[in-house]
């Protein structure tokens, strides 16, 4: 037998430390530095080893493409905000500078929710079994967040603002850098703190369900906010001079009415970090060294305080995780005695009826299809990230409803508002369609073990998702109609036709993606998911392609003034997509069996 004497296993108290570096030195001591190096190497090795698989190569390609896209988006946003900052500073309109900081702030804080499934995140909780100090853990948590999309975009926006302001006011370079830097640190810590706490609430079923309910209430409240905000706003569509004059007068009246309210909002926002950053820059403007420092001390001090609070809130959460807080469900003890009693006595009639009711909502005749649909419904009710998918389309209707009402170019009631809102509703379902096995986890094995054909499972999932989308589309359609008036019959027919084409097309492609590039979805997490970027990007491209077909058909029919013709065209396309969907379902069995190893690997095996 091969010996392991050199490993020094349990060779007495004196020898345990052999080959070990001394602890200490805080977050930058020799052991801490070695740990950072090991983690960086780990990430690199995981990435390079991933290239052994076709999926890994695809992931790397998509990730590179993704970073290019995010980088380009960030540069565009940063350029826009930088230009805005430049214009405001150059034209001495610094009082509007808070708008630039608020835009950056909202972008930074909102992006992680929108992009949760588009980025792979490493769960640092797994390093806690090693002798990692809390300072190192905190630092790692903050540093690992620097490569996420929100930080890239937010960071580029900050660079843009800094450049814009420096070009306009070169004398303020140092103050601008300090302000923007402080503002960026605040945003990094705040976004990490918010999502660390959200993940904590999502980790337990009860808090997850409460958070889900709160989220749905927020979405519904947003719907009520829409008409409330736009009540009384003038119609900018100007058919003649008389109307235009009346609108301008109406706008002035509104300005007088809302100005006190806006002043109050302004007074409040000045005490919040984006407002403070702008205020600090206003205060140092035109002053020299000590004068400037004295003038802006309060503003910078407050931003520093906010940053500290965000850091403390994040630290409190991480400290709990570091100490060994368990967010999992408590293990249930086996209640053998009652089971024995039940077995001995048999189930009472009432209990049988109750068990039957609990075993399913759909009739028994629906068989495995009904069973899978019920399972999907139950999973959905316990997953905030998926509930978000349901709520998001309504939010989109809220946004676009406002746009169509107030945009002078589009007019009061945009003719194609209904299909546009439907398209956006469908966009929210992208991840549900394209990763319909993601929530199965280890349960995927059961799907392969059971006598139910895989295509039946996919059919059930497709039917469930189609029903869900149908409900969502109906609500969105009603909201659009209430907001913008009932659509024209030809538009309605065209929209229904497009849906009949788009839904099976998305389901068919989604089934293929679900089998070929699935990723495990943790219903208890919004961040730190291990998503597949290839799946995310390709499914989004599919959605965009389906929308492009719709836009082309609608556009051409509108151009030739035969909007009614869109309906029949879409029906023909729908026949093709239904045929394609059925073919995919027919081939699903073979496709899933050929990819069985890969599916199990991704959804079941070790990280």
């Amino acid at each position, binding site marked *: 037998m091969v010996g392991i004497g050199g490993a020094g296993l349990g060779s007495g108290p004196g020898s345990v430390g052999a080959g070990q570096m001394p602890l200490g030195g805080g977050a930058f001591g020799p052991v801490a530095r070695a740990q950072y190096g090991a983690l960086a190497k*780990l990430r690199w090795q995981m990435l390079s080893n991933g290239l052994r698989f076709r999926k890994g190569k695809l992931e790397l390609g998509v990730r590179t493409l993704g970073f290019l896209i995010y980088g380009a988006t960030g540069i565009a946003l940063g350029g826009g905000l930088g230009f805005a900052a430049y214009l405001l500073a150059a034209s001495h309109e610094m009082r509007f500078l808070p708008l630039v900081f608020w835009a950056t702030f909202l972008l930074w804080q909102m992006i992680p929710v929108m992009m949760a499934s588009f980025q792979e995140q490493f769960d640092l909780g797994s390093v806690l079994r*090693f002798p990692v100090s809390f300072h190192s853990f905190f630092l790692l948590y903050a540093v690992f967040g620097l490569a996420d999309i929100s930080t890239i975009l937010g960071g580029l926006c900050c660079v843009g603002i800094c450049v814009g302001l420096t070009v306009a006011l070169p004398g303020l370079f140092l103050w601008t850098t300090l302000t923007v830097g402080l503002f960026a640190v605040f945003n990094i810590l705040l976004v990490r703190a918010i999502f660390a706490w959200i993940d904590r609430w999502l980790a337990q079923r009860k808090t997850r369900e409460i958070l889900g309910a709160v989220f749905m209430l927020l979405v519904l409240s947003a719907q009520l906010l829409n008409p409330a905000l736009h009540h009384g706003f003038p119609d900018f569509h100007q058919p003649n001079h008389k109307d235009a004059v009346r609108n301008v007068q109406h706008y002035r009246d509104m300005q007088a009415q809302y100005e006190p309210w806006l002043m109050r909002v302004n007074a409040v926002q000045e005490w919040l970090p984006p407002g403070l950053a702008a205020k600090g820059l206003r205060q140092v403007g035109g002053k020299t060294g000590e004068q400037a420092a004295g003038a802006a001390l309060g503003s910078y001090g407050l931003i520093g305080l906010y940053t500290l609070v965000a850091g403390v809130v994040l630290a409190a959460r991480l400290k709990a995780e570091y100490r060994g807080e368990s967010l999992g469900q408590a293990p249930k003890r086996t209640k053998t005695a009652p089971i024995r009693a039940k077995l001995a006595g048999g189930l009472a009639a009432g209990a049988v009826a109750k068990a039957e009711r609990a075993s399913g909502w759909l009739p028994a005749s629906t068989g495995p299809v009904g069973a899978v649909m019920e399972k999907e419904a139950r999973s959905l009710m316990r997953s905030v990230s998926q509930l978000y998918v349901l709520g998001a389309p309504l939010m989109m209707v809220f946004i676009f409803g406002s746009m169509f009402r107030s945009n002078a170019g589009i007019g009061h009631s945009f003719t194609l508002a209904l299909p546009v809102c439907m398209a956006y509703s469908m966009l929210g379902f992208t991840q549900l369609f394209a990763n319909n096995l993601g929530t199965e986890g280890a349960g995927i094995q059961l799907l392969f073990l059971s006598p139910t054909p895989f295509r039946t499972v996919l059919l059930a999932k497709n039917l469930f998702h189609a029903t869900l989308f149908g409900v969502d589309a109906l609500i969105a359609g009603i909201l659009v109609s209430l907001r913008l008036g009932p659509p024209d019959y030809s538009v309605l027919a065209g929209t229904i036709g497009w849906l009949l084409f788009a839904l099976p097309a998305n389901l068919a492609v989604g089934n293929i993606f679900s089998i070929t590039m699935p990723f495990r979805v943790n219903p208890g997490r919004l961040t730190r998911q291990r998503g597949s970027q290839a799946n995310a990007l390709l499914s989004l491209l599919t959605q965009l392609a389906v929308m492009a077909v719709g836009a082309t058909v609608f556009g051409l029919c509108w151009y030739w003034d035969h909007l009614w013709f869109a309906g029949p065209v879409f029906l023909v396309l729908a026949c093709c997509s239904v045929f394609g969907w059925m073919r995919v379902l027919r081939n699903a069995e073979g496709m899933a069996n050929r990819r069985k190893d890969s599916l199990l690997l991704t959804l079941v095996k*070790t990280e």
Partner: protein
Amino acid sequence: MVTAAIQTYGLTRRFGALTAVEDVTLSVASGQFFGFLGPNGAGKSTTIKMLTGLLEPSAGSIEILGQPFGAGALELKRQIGVVPEGMALLGRLTAPEYLRFVGRMYGLDRATTARRTDELLEFMQLADESKKLITDFSHGMQKKLALAAAVIHGPKVLFLDEPFEGVDAIAAGMLKSMLQGMINRGATIFLTTHVLEIVERLCSHVAIISKGRLVANGSIQELRAGVASTLPGAEHEQRLTLEEIFLSIVGAGEQPEPQQELSWLA
């Protein structure tokens, strides 16, 4: 007086209304091979997680090698090795990459890490699989790798949660001899397993936890004598196996009688 390698005082862990581990006071002497037994859901893994700093106790305290232990006790963390419940392997690494990663995380210098990685892979008969990703390993190979990772830094106290599950007889024999060698050199091993035969063969002392409470603690001979004293006839003591002792303590009466079992099963 010999310092206990592991000492707990009133260790308690609550999950909401459920108390998973309640008031566990336990002492494991240095150099002991200690078996920690209990039925499913009794609180074994919860206890191990608390003892290794992965789970914060709701009440009570822990001392490892005579010093108070918590998540921040880094020096103590370096003196313990763990094979956790889910093995905590990283599937997209190869075995040498993983061992080198673990070695560096425990603060070993590069040369020591590399040398021990090679030795451990050789010993665990995984050296020929050094190009394979961990995710492609069999369950048994993964267990061996998890054990190698738990000992690479030469721990004084080793916590093993079901280490022999899925390991073939040859590998199990090899692992047992390795663990026995560690004990001979003064290490302490805290083992949980459902395979009572292994505990009977390896462990000198045993504790049994049931419904979160420690219901028995002592050497196997002491437990045997204790259970035998409750049975009629002194000759029982010599014949009692650990399985009989275990069932007697945690309640064999909870098993359904044959006639009460699921009658519709073939």
